[in-house]
């Protein structure tokens, strides 16, 4: 009898697991040596924030300190400087309404807000060839590595941060964590993993040709971080 490949997969499963179990069945886990992590010095928040910014900048992200009130205006100005006239924002994103309101309050603005409201499959062409910039929010920040943690959702799909060549992220200093380990631990990610989590630490890059760094390999060429210091 010829097995189809998916039946064979089941047979392979049994065979692999049996082989492995034969070796480690009944192993005494209490004998496992204690694992000790490195104790990183606890830094004051201001220093952590400084590290966060330095790392991001070293990875060629542009970090702009903004106040909570002028986030949207700064975003608009950044795009104007680049001659960009269209900005993609998620449908239902917390950024959408205030952005639109800011645009409406100054009718001379030429920027058009585009809302991500259809399936990627239905707007791929536009996304790849006619979407110069996007904006999204970050959920947490990591000081040690200068990392933005994005928690994509229906209102902020993951490709927002991937396909358009310029990506703006709004970040709040109050969401800063010392490192990835404490972030996972303190917020018990284990119990709430979403479809996809993204850690972003700069614009897309590659050093695949003769170790020469080039930006915008496949993802955004520019990453602009609007950092709101809401700690003070």
């Amino acid at each position, binding site marked *: 009898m010829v097995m189809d490949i998916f039946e064979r997969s089941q047979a*392979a499963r049994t065979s692999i697991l049996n082989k492995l179990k034969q070796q480690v069945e009944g192993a005494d886990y209490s004998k496992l040596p204690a694992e000790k992590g490195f104790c990183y010095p606890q830094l004051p928040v201001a220093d952590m924030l400084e590290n966060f910014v330095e790392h991001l900048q070293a990875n060629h992200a542009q970090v702009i300190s903004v106040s909570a009130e002028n986030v949207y205006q700064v975003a608009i100005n950044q795009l104007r400087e680049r001659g960009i006239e269209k900005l993609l924002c998620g449908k239902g994103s917390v950024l959408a309404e205030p952005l639109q309101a800011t645009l409406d309050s100054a009718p001379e603005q030429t920027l058009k807000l585009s809302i991500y409201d259809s399936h990627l499959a239905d707007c791929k062409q536009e996304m790849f060839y006619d979407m110069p910039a996007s904006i999204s929010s970050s959920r947490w920040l990591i000081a040690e590595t200068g990392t933005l943690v994005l928690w994509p959702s229906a209102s902020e799909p993951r490709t927002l941060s991937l396909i358009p060549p310029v990506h703006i992220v709004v970040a709040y200093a109050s969401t800063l964590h010392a490192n990835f380990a404490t972030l996972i631990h303190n917020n018990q990610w284990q119990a709430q993993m979403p479809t996809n989590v993204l850690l972003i630490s700069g614009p897309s890059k590659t050093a695949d040709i003769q*170790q020469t760094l080039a930006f915008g390999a*496949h993802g955004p060429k520019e990453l602009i971080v609007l950092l709101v210091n809401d700690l003070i």
Partner: protein
Amino acid sequence: MTVKIQEPEQSESKYAETARAFRQNVKKDLANAELRENFHGAMNYLMAKRAASFPSDDELETLRNQCKLIKQRALLKLPYLLEKLESNLQANGIHVHWAETITDANEIIAQVITSKNGKHIVKGKSMVSEETALNDYLHARDMEILESDMGEYIVQLAHEHPSHIIMPAIHQNKKQVADLFDKHIDGFDYTTDVDALIGEGRRILRDKFCHADVGITGVNFAVAETGTLCLVENEGNGQMSSAVPNVHIALTGIEKVVELLEDVPPLLSLLTRSATGQAITTYFNMITKPRQSDEKDGPEEVHLVLLDNGRSQAFADEELRQTLQCIRCGACMNHCPVYTRIGGHAYGTVYPGPIGKIISPHMLGLEATKDLPTASSLCGACGEVCPVKIPIPKILQRLRTESVKVHSGSPDELKGAGSNRKPMEATIWKIWSFIHKHQGMYRFSMWVATRLRGLLPSKLGVWTQVRSAPQLAPKTLHERIQARQPRG
């Protein structure tokens, strides 16, 4: 109508043949000055970057110990973690497949693609897919599969395979890449400017991402606790491959599973720093579910293919099991004096360098790879930099022993064990060991050897091609010490 003739399935990986040709490969590549220059420059660069990213020895050592123990714990629980990973992935809506051989893994992937009427496939970097020679397999079935990591794309254009597990096109310089683009890309405006070259790759690959039906990637860590697949990358092609097409297939070896989500941060930190000296890569992508009904992007179907391909053989021996701790950072090759000189292709295997020497025998058998463990000066650099503390030099010695021992035919024996055993050599060693175990015999034979020293030929095969022949002393050390007058 063209009829495609299906090639007979290979029962053996195509890399077995190229690994057997190790000695010829080395001769050829050592004579290539440009290649040596490319590797030399790249390895110096990567070693300096790694060193700079570990300013504190204390931190480095603590992390290495911690990560070694994390991986050893995962291995001790491996079958149970695989079961847990599977049930959590399935609960999350991700399909799980198992394959013992490379052909089965390829077949599973081909079937999944066919079931979705897929034709155009983009692939993020995956060394396991190199292991299975997936591209050849799908090409033979009339599917277009395009590498999307810039380095892999270059290597695919050149009809080569990666020469380094992290930087696949490290053997090429920008002039060579420009020549390659010139030959293969219509309308390419000749330039050796790296930004422009990457821009060209971006333009072509974006179009492919936009139209691909299926994306294939590897996996860096598979978290059993949550059923999460983690991808480490800088370019964004892994995300493009896993988020844009309607189907995402991830292919990985069974050893990539870790127990807890909290095991990931230290491993990630050591991986990126050991590999490229980065505190973290541009992207770290954690995939736990396919697209949910209210979401607008991401694949509707996600599949994970778990491949054995000899890993369970390494698992069956406690010493060799440590090979499976590897997180594929490439640091061992970056610091290997042999790799730096002969380059990545000479090994003839998918995984080159020190890790290649210790993992390939399980994938291809010791017969095809018997020269690899011997191609080392046992300088120890690989073991010293390995972030998960695999004792690579010890394992090399062990594999040397395995390759020359008497072939017993027992099922526990490594595939190809004893294939490097030479009767003459074995007899000489037996006599040598007998002599050294018997005092009288030893004295006598040394006495004879020193007295007959004049008979030693001045030409000793390869040894004297570049060295002068060793000379025996006229008297043994024992004799000379006995002859010395006790002082005072």
